[in-house]
């Protein structure tokens, strides 16, 4: 079997199965954990769970003024590569076709040149994120293998995708095969590393919001 056939076939299949199993496992394990009920009385005018958690999720999308300066780079650069990745994944026609195969729905894509431009910006933004992590003494001190692995596993699809559309280095079918394999690796890593924040931040922020709202505070 050729590399591309393996990538499009068994590799993606394995990746998607592990992703599906892993995400369900982690979410179920987390949400079904026994919880200690808060026996204190809620403050007056405490908003409901949905409003409190929703409010906190939105509030934390931008840092508080006191922390704005210290976190400016991470916030802005973070948005750049997150939005970039979203535009590439959900706006690039080949990716839309991949998702159509999975979900049965599709939508119009963006011109290839725009996607390529966004991919270059995303690539640079991810490099900047790594450099920042390595240069900041605090971040470097607290960074673990999990962080670096997550960075590599996110960067590889961007790099291999750019190589594939530019037909650089190897024959196209090899580049495409490698790109799809990198997605399989991404999917396998996703539930067990820092990428799981994609689901967990909503749970964490929501929980914090509800908890604080119960005590009549907002942070």
């Amino acid at each position, binding site marked *: 079997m050729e590399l591309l056939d393996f990538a499009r076939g068994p590799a*993606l299949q394995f990746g998607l199965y592990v992703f599906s199993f892993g995400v369900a496992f982690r979410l179920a394990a987390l949400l079904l954990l026994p919880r200690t009920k808060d026996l204190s009385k809620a403050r007056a005018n405490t908003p409901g769970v949905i409003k409190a958690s929703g409010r906190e999720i939105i509030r934390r999308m931008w840092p508080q003024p006191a922390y704005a300066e210290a976190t400016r780079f991470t916030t802005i650069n973070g948005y750049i590569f997150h939005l970039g990745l979203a535009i590439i994944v959900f706006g690039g026609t*080949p990716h839309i076709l991949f998702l159509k195969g999975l979900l049965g729905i599709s939508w119009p894509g963006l011109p290839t040149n725009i996607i390529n431009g966004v991919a270059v910006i995303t690539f640079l933004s991810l490099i900047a994120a790594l450099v920042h992590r390595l240069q900041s003494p605090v971040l470097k001190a607290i960074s673990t293998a999990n962080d670096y692995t997550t960075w590599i596993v996110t960067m590889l699809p961007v790099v291999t995708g750019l190589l594939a559309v530019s037909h650089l280095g190897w024959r196209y079918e090899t580049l495409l095969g490698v790109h799809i394999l990198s997605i399989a690796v991404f999917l396998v890593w996703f539930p067990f590393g820092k990428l799981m924040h994609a689901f967990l931040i909503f749970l964490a922020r929501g929980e914090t919001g509800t908890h604080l709202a119960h005590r009549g505070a907002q942070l």
Partner: protein
Amino acid sequence: MREHNTLGQTLQERGISRRAFLKYASYLATLMALPPSASRVIAEEMAKAHRQSVIWLSFQECTGCTESFTRSMSPTLEDLIFDFISLDYHHTLQAVSGAAAEHAREAAMKANKGKYIVVVDGSVPLKDGGVYSTIAGITNLDMLRDTAKDAFAIVSVGTCSAFGGIPHANPNPTGAVAISEIIKDKPVINIPGCPPIPEAMTGTLAYLLSFGKLPELDASHRPLAFFGETIHDRCYRRSFYERGMFADSFDDEGARKGWCLYKVGCKGPIAYNACATLKWNGAVSFPIQSGHGCLGCSEPDFWDKGGFYKPLSAATAGLTLGVGGAALAGAAAGAAGAELVRRKKAAAANAGKKEG
């Protein structure tokens, strides 16, 4: 049989001047991307050469390759190939049959020992001793090995002989294999395609005749002159691909406007062939121009690449049940894990109560 006359003398006797060689050589040089200066050399060498003995073996095939070969659309020029080669054995085209045909083959092999070219179309079945395809009681495997013994080169025409092709497709009930899996001690040129473009076959044979050596081949033993670029690289619809203008389905607005066929499964980006430049039926058209995506028929296992209408970027395995099942299994495992924690906690609480 080995002819005593050179090709130049043979055509001379028919009143065809050396200019015919020069014209054919120019045509060949253009086809195979050789410099124009090569045409004079080719013409001289061809005129001095003797008719090339060719033994054509047909195994597990549909005869499409022979049809393509004889359907060349520059007949006055390409007819010349039938003057340049002596087709000493070919099931479909030869007049004799039965034992006489096999004798003809053996005689040609003997007379042209070390110099004849074996052209093969069709794959060779290996399962159950090779009984699924035999000729005159001889299995394809035996006939191939026997005929290839004293050959100068083997040319596998068509995807079946080059890579196994359709017989090789899942589940491959006859154990079909490519010629190159069997012949390891002779040079093998692959000219895949289902069928191959006529000029790819005739051009390669003419090159062998003129230069007496193999043309430049890629890693899959395909002549670079015809298989060096993908359909995508030379497709006239490429600008639509770049601009993100695709046909969403056959006969929709995009399809009618001639937009890119990526979404309806075109395998152009990974198919190496000359269809986009040489085209078919005398440069009239090719699949994409006619509105259908490339099947990738010159690639190995093109039949098993997930379907002709599945885009290159889509997963090929059937996933819905598996992904759903995996999610359920994950949720169950998570619940089991949470339950374990719950019990541990309860046990600790009980132990605490007992102590307290």
